């Protein structure tokens, strides 16, 4: 089978089947863009986890005047506070760093955060509890600290910032599952579209293929033009999907989101570029598979 001949056969097939080819390209592009989005969303979540888990702390709030916890008997005493610090110290290396924040420090921060707000007038320094801020070697070790401290006198409550973050990540994960579900549905539609395109194409060219068979053309040379048609469409679709993803990174993430949401670490270019080959492989792989299966049915040798 000569290359120039195959090329003209493929070009003819794509032209003859123009609307179907366009539908196929769009379907491949949309489904692969969704696959890419789902993959990038996962990368984004991983990146935020790595960044924030590194920064999160466990807060141990100490008893104040109005505390009602069973470990509290009025405001924490100096003795109790020293004891808590000793317990925390004994938890090394799980506990890496310990900071003490007095009610006055907490009030200072509060004033900063709510500068100019009327709420400031209603809050006095002793309404804000004093606390220990503890940094762990691994945020997953929160339970160890909680177990060691939950019944120690003078501790009112122990708060894990990770729980707050995890709730947020849960939402992202839900979005990711949603993207994966839509991507799967779109890929399914794409497979059906490939099969239908090949079937129509095989029917339109049944005279050619019957001549090819009767003069003894090999099975591969009879099927190759059909498969290449689907591959050309899927490569164009993959390019569009890639362009869409790169454009999102450049114009949405880098130009809009990153400058405004400086506390969020966004996915890097190398992470985005890493999924490009995945998109092409998935696009071409699926169409080759779907078209081969269909040809087996419609072009019996």
């Amino acid at each position, binding site marked *: *089978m000569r290359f120039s*001949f195959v090329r003209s056969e493929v070009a003819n097939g794509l032209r003859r089947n123009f609307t179907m080819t366009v539908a196929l390209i769009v379907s491949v592009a949309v489904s692969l863009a969704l696959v890419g989005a789902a993959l990038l969303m996962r990368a984004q979540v991983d990146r935020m986890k790595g960044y924030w888990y590194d920064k999160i702390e466990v807060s141990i709030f100490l008893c104040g005047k109005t505390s009602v916890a069973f470990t509290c008997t009025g405001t924490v005493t100096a003795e109790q506070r020293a004891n808590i610090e000793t317990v925390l110290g004994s938890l090394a290396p799980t506990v890496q760093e310990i900071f003490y924040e007095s009610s006055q420090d907490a009030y200072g921060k509060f004033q900063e955060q709510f500068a100019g707000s009327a709420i400031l007038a209603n809050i006095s320094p002793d309404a804000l509890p004093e606390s220990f801020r503890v940094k762990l070697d691994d945020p997953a070790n929160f339970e160890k600290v909680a177990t060691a401290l939950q019944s120690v006198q003078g501790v009112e409550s122990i708060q894990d910032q990770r729980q707050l973050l995890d709730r947020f990540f849960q939402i992202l994960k839900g979005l990711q599952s949603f993207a994966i579900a839509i991507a799967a549905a779109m890929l399914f539609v794409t497979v059906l579209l490939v099969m239908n395109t090949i079937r129509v194409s095989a029917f339109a060219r049944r005279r050619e293929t019957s001549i090819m068979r009767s*003069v003894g053309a090999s099975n591969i040379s009879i099927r190759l033009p059909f498969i290449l048609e689907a591959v050309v469409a899927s490569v164009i679709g993959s390019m569009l999907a890639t362009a869409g993803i790169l454009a999102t990174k450049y114009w949405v993430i880098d130009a809009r989101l990153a400058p405004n949401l400086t506390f969020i670490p966004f996915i890097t270019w190398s992470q985005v570029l890493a999924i490009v080959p995945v998109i092409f492989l998935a696009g071409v792989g699926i169409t080759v598979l779907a078209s081969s299966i269909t040809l087996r049915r419609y072009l019996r040798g």
Partner: protein
Amino acid sequence: MPALAEIDLNIEQGDFVFLVGASGSGKSTLLRLLLREETATSGTVTVDGVNVAKIRHRDVPAYRRNMGIVFQDFRLLPGKTVFENVAFGMEVIGKHKSEIARKVPALLELVGLEEKSHRLPSELSGGEQQRVAMARAFVNQPKLLLADEPTGNLDPATSVGIMKLLDRINRIGTTVIMATHDVATVDQMRKRIVQMEDGKIVRDQERGMYGQSGQAL
């Protein structure tokens, strides 16, 4: 009921055989067995010493290059010229451009269409279209030519020309097997006749006529 039963037929290299009989009598099935578009459920089909049923799937194309086939409906590609239609048969089996450029004119000369190589099929008469199909069937210089009702769509005068061409192809050593129910053509050629009825051979006669005296058709 099977399409063919109790068939015992031997055709020598260089023979010219008419397969005659009503539609559905099994002529086409016999041709399909020879082409290996179908395999027999029992019994063996041997072509040129090869048991056709034993040919591996991927070797079927190579086997088919040893035979040519022409159909009643010509099966030309309407968008391609006469030259391109014949060339198509060579392109799809990977022949080189220079070989195609050399061989196609020779084939068109064989069928008497060298003057019309740049015409489209729609500009040709039925007989001319069938000649193009025969040129294409001959690209591999097959030893066996199968013809399924090649004159079925042609008027008697044109059929004579096609039969002369088949006869010429037969004279250069090609075995020709032609399925037909064209009485005039068969009677005029006086070749071997294999008559089929309900999947069985009911007559096998050298230099025969379509209707034997006293036999109703």
